């Protein structure tokens, strides 16, 4: 059990996170928030790279900073933009990180081919990483995070650079892994977590907005999401009245999905809300600003 207790983080005078209260047990957690909301800061605290300005983070009741390497031994971490040496091949690179993670050379020798097979890189084991595509690098990163068979797997934007096929593979892999460990997956891409996360954590205004199952979160908007078709000319005034969630052209008309307090026209079809709807609803100010 990983507990984040009243944690705040300031950089100088700027406050990034305030009074964060979270608990993690085995399962996949989706950390969902727009860019700049403090996801990476939270994750860097969970990986001991940043120190909380206030509060504490506990693993099984012990402060992770006083646990030191005993704690870090339990985590696997894939940073957002992680580094590698261009002239190393994946084998050398993983061996290097294995050393840092305190894994014996023999153990690493056994583990590395398996991991590389898992991320479908077994053929590239002796190729210099400078020749790799972004997706290949990302897969090496995933392999690296699992090197020490972590109890807590922390992945910051892990699907960046992966193609749809790889994404599916990756999601299945994560569900598999999450049976007996904590998997924290930070992303702003809703579809990444929609199908696999047991719980979603949203951060807004420096604080935890929700931490709940997808179902429970979607419940919030139950009966408020509608779809309707209209002429193009009508779209603009409609948008000003309702929060539009998605728009697409169909049969020469515009199919629009939006939020409204109640159904006020027979043409409106009530639909069941998705996580994406909630995301857009919750962060609508930011969405609006971005649209402008």
């Amino acid at each position, binding site marked *: 059990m990983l507990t984040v207790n009243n944690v705040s983080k300031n950089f100088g005078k700027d406050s990034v996170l305030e009074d964060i209260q979270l608990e993690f047990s085995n399962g996949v957690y989706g950390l969902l928030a727009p860019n700049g909301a403090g996801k990476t800061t939270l994750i*860097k605290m969970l*990986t001991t790279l940043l120190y909380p300005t206030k509060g504490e983070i506990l693993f099984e009741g012990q402060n992770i900073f006083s646990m*030191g390497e005993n704690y*870090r031994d339990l985590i696997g*971490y894939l940073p957002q*933009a*992680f580094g590698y*040496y261009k002239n190393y091949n994946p084998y050398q690179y993983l061996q290097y990180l294995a050393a840092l993670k*305190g894994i014996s050379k023999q153990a690493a020798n056994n583990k590395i081919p398996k991991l590389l097979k898992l991320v479908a890189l077994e053929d590239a084991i002796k190729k210099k990483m400078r020749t790799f595509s972004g997706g290949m690098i990302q897969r090496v990163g995933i392999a690296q995070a699992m090197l020490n068979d972590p109890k807590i797997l922390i992945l910051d934007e892990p699907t960046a650079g992966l193609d749809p096929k790889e994404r599916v593979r990756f999601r299945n892999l994560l569900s598999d892994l999450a049976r007996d460990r904590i998997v924290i997956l930070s992303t702003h891409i809703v579809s990444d977590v929609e199908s696999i996360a047991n719980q979603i954590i949203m951060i807004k205004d420096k604080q935890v907005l929700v931490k709940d199952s997808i179902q429970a979160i979607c419940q919030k908007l139950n009966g408020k999401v509608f779809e309707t078709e209209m002429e193009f000319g009508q779209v603009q005034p409609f948008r000003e009245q309702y929060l539009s969630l998605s728009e697409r052209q169909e049969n020469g008309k515009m199919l629009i999905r939006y939020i409204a307090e109640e159904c006020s026209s027979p043409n409106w079809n009530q639909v069941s809300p998705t996580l994406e709807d909630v995301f857009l609803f919750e962060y609508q100010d930011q969405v609006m600003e971005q649209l402008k």
Partner: protein
Amino acid sequence: MRIIIEEMKKIFHPVMMLIFVLINLLMYYIFIDFDVTVFPNGRPATDMYNIGIEMVEKYGYELDEDELKDFKKVFRQEINKADKYIQADQEFAKLGITNYREYQEMRNGDHENPAIERLSSRIMFEDGVDLFWEIPERENIIEEMEFVNERYGYSYTDGKLTDKQELRIQEIVQSGTVNAIFPAYPVQDNFQTISHSIAITILVSVIFMISPIFIRDYKNNMFGLQYSSKIGRSLFMKKVAAGMLSAFIITTFLIIVYYGMYSTNDIGMFLESEINSFMGSVYWYDFTFLQLILMTVLLTYVIMLSMSLLAIFVSSICKNYISIIGILLPLFAVVYWLIKTRALPVEAFFLTRTQWEIGIIYSIMIMIPTAAISWKVKRKQRIDITD
């Protein structure tokens, strides 16, 4: 240890090794080669060196009174030989010179006489007659020995000596150490230049190899992964250790290579000689030549390790390679100057060098990098890793 080895693998990157070899080839060729291949360098260095060997073989490492007498006897024989040479040579006769003394007097007295200049230039340079080179050197040695009480230690101190310096000279003279046979010129002088060149070559090599240690990881965006792995912030110390170990290996390797080359200079017979010799300089300590060399090697290590530590520190605070070079360059210039003028034995232990000055230089050289690194280590424990 595995982490240290992994880190060292990065330090000994093949491209770096290639440039390392190139730097060493060039610096060897430009700075060291001459003192290895051309020793002793010309005349009278060669003559002095030969006389030195002759003395050590005949008298051992010290020249006592009987041996001095013998040496004088040899000297007189040489003069006799020179006399015979002069009498056999027609040109001397033309100038009215019948023996060596007359020749010497004429040379000293009459600088403007072109005929005598021509003649001596012929026998010294064109014919290269050993006798005429060796006799003045032998005469010098005899004089130095006979006037040792009056002259020893004064010639290069302007006669202004502190009490302590005075005492030291007295000590050497009275203990008889001064009788040591050690041709400081050219043996000590050659060692002095070559030990400087070797130290500077190693310094450049070590700084070049060690400096990228942290910035390489920074540039490759490795910090997040490294410091969140099990080893965590203690990786910093491991990397420092890896850097120092590499510096030690590089230094050792280059010392073996370059001093190995130096050993081809044939100075083996003087290794046991006391360096405080009437034929040479005054030092603060009673060392044999071998001990002097070992001290030089030891202090070379100290300089290299402390500069490596400094380079490691600079690497850990810099955000780009140009800053590293920009910061290390002036520091290198200072250490270069120290090596050239005072920091290495030979001159570090000269009577003219106050020993507290040397002490301070080395204290600073050891303390500043150590303090900087320990500050950085402590700080590293506390600060956020944002890069």
